[in-house]
């Protein structure tokens, strides 16, 4: 038993953190808030140069084929830095879907480009008044000659305006299918929507959008299962992102609690506040070890059907609670735009509400514990 990182893993962490400290500063994060494109070129270029976009993509397709554990270490850093990049939608979710279910042609067309950052792909998944589960997918894919036409509405499509392709979850006669669709295709309308975390997300309306048969990913009706499998990997990384964000929020708060004096004492000398921070620290360390165990299990080829949802459930709840407590400790200044803690506060809640929310994860864990 050993929880230490290997030398290579530590190097990956240091390298990623060093780059992000330079290229994902809080000024960069603020400059991307509500930006319709949502990510800065320089940061994205740096991610590519460090090989981070290909971290999960096999060497045969231009990546470095590392395990989910390495990716989780990178995600903790992305979370710390609040990095505004389309990495998750493209280099994780889309790449995973193509690797899992894509044809050779599709893999050849996209994986290498994703790995070197030349292409951005993004899933178009959630719909108005519908949930996270498979029945939530209602956007219709009607067989039409040698292809399909898509009609319906998607929301929370991140970085859609910058994407080369969306991977659209649609309902066909066979079940849920995945389709590669160009956001510039006729019949597709993108509407930028503002969000709590100020990221670039879109409502995408599909009005009889033509898709060629060759743009379906995987066999008819297999899309739902492929997506769920990709999500199980993905949420471990988002949990790692939550750990990083929570830890940075706490670090900055602890520093402030050492400096800010009221009643002739630094705030941290009040046990009421010190105990909040001790709880926060314990929650963060608990989250991290759970995330590592989930990612390690995946890397070992073991099942993550229980660990993955537990990791996101716990880490996102911790992130949200830590940022609430941190804001409380900063006092009035937390409420001003000028101070940074409010950015973490907004990111934490949005992350918890996205990519399987608390009730959905609770059900996954409960089902795994009780029903099998």
């Amino acid at each position: 038993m050993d929880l230490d990182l290997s030398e290579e893993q530590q190097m990956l962490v240091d390298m990623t953190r060093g780059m992000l400290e330079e290229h994902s500063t809080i000024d960069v994060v603020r400059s991307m808030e509500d930006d319709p494109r949502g990510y800065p070129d320089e940061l994205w270029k740096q991610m590519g140069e460090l090989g981070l976009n290909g971290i999960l993509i096999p060497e045969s397709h231009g990546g470095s084929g590392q395990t989910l554990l390495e990716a989780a270490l990178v995600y903790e850093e992305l979370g710390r830095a609040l990095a505004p990049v389309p990495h998750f939608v493209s280099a994780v979710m889309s790449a995973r879907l193509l690797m899992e279910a894509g044809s050779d042609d599709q893999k050849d067309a996209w994986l290498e480009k994703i790995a070197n950052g030349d292409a951005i792909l993004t899933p178009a998944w959630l719909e108005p008044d519908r949930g996270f589960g498979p029945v939530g997918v209602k956007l219709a894919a009607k067989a039409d000659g040698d292809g399909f036409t898509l009609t319906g509405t998607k929301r929370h499509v991140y970085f859609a305006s910058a994407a080369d392709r969306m991977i659209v979850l649609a309902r066909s006669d066979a079940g849920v299918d995945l389709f590669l669709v160009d956001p510039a295709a006729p019949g597709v309308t993108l509407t930028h929507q503002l969000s709590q975390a100020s990221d670039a997300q879109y409502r995408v309306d599909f009005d009889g959008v033509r898709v060629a048969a060759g743009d379906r990913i995987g066999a008819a009706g297999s899309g739902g299962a492929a997506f769920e499998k990709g999500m199980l990997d993905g949420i471990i990384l988002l949990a790692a992102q939550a750990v990083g964000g929570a830890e940075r929020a706490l670090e900055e708060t602890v520093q402030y609690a050492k400096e800010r004096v009221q009643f002739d004492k630094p705030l941290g000398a009040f046990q009421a506040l010190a105990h909040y921070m001790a709880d926060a620290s314990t929650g963060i360390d608990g989250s991290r070890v759970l995330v590592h165990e989930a990612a390690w299990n995946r890397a070992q080829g073991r099942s993550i059907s229980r660990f993955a949802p537990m990791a996101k459930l716990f880490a996102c709840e911790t992130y949200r609670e830590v940022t609430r407590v941190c804001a409380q400790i900063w006092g009035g200044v937390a409420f001003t735009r000028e101070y940074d803690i409010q950015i973490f506060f907004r990111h934490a809640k949005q992350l918890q509400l996205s990519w399987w929310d608390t009730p959905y994860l609770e059900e996954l864990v409960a089902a795994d514990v009780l029903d099998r």
Partner: protein
Amino acid sequence: MDFDFSPEEQKFAEEVEQWLVENHDPVVMDPTRENFSQLADTPERRAFMKKLAKKGWLGMSWPKKYGGQEIEGVYEFILNEALSRHAAPQIGKGVGIIGKTLIRHGSEKLKQEFLPKILDAEIEFAVGYSEPQAGSDAANMQLKAEKVDGGWKLNGQKMWTTSAHFADWYWVGARTDPDKPKHDGLSLFLIPMDHPGLEVQSLPTIGKDTTNQVFFEDVFVPDDYLVGKRGQGFQMISEALDLERFTMFTLSPIADRSRVLIEWVRTATRDDQPLRNDPNVRRIIAHIATDTAVAKGLSTRFVCAAKEGGKPPTIQSSQYKLFTTTLSQRVCKDALDVAGAAGQLREGQEDAPLAGRFEGAYRATMNETVGGGSSEIQKNIIARRKLGLPKNF
């Protein structure tokens, strides 16, 4: 025991409610401004305050001698709850903090100058206690007041003066006696907000509105405008807080937000199923309803304690403030959880549930557990004064 208002109080509550319905004006009353809706910060909202004045609803608890009606504070409580439920401006600082302090401690000159104008809703005040180094530790104010010929010269800085950008007069605490212990060296001043030595800088918040910092450069204040006795500032501030418990933190906006959420849950669907059938949603709503009932109970508790007179209901009001502001934040969090992915859409986005009311409120309520005495300060009060625990700070 009687949980109901008396028939007279009930009659007043109904009268106010009816009047507010008849005088409903969306330009004046905007619930999405959350906490900031209590401020009379526009010409329309000031005109509304004048209407309240005409009704005789300002200064009801004041002595008759100063134009009041000498009726119980509970009527002001009823009025403010109704105003806040309608997201109308409230009878805040003028009638409460400033008016009541002037009545008890002010000179005849200040009474004559300010009290009639307060009753007629002619002036709006900003309250300047907090400073960069004086937040929870309010007695630590450093704003310097130097004695000069015929008055005082003020230099320094205030933080968080919420109404400074539209108010007419500034109610300010400053250090007149730096050599005395910190609680005994403060005095209160009244300063016209357009004084050329004052510079107001906006501090935008992540809620709906802005607060301000104010810089003082050689601000001369004539002797007459030092309120009460020199060195008694902190005592007057504390006393005013105690007198003001009735109108300070209203429950209605929080209860109303719960109502709005519940109405939404009643009709919303997910995957074509009514959301209200979801056991998880039902559990959340049950807790919100229960906690809101507890908050109402804690409010009733301090109203009853205040009605009995004698000691100010400090403990009851601390418990109420602690519980209610925490609940307020929790309701917003729960509402986003109920909304699921759509909860992340920003307030104002057409697609957002309830036009993003709760996304906005999630941010806007962040400060409720800090402003007006933070949760930790309330806990200290409860621990020491109610439970008799030793002081440890």
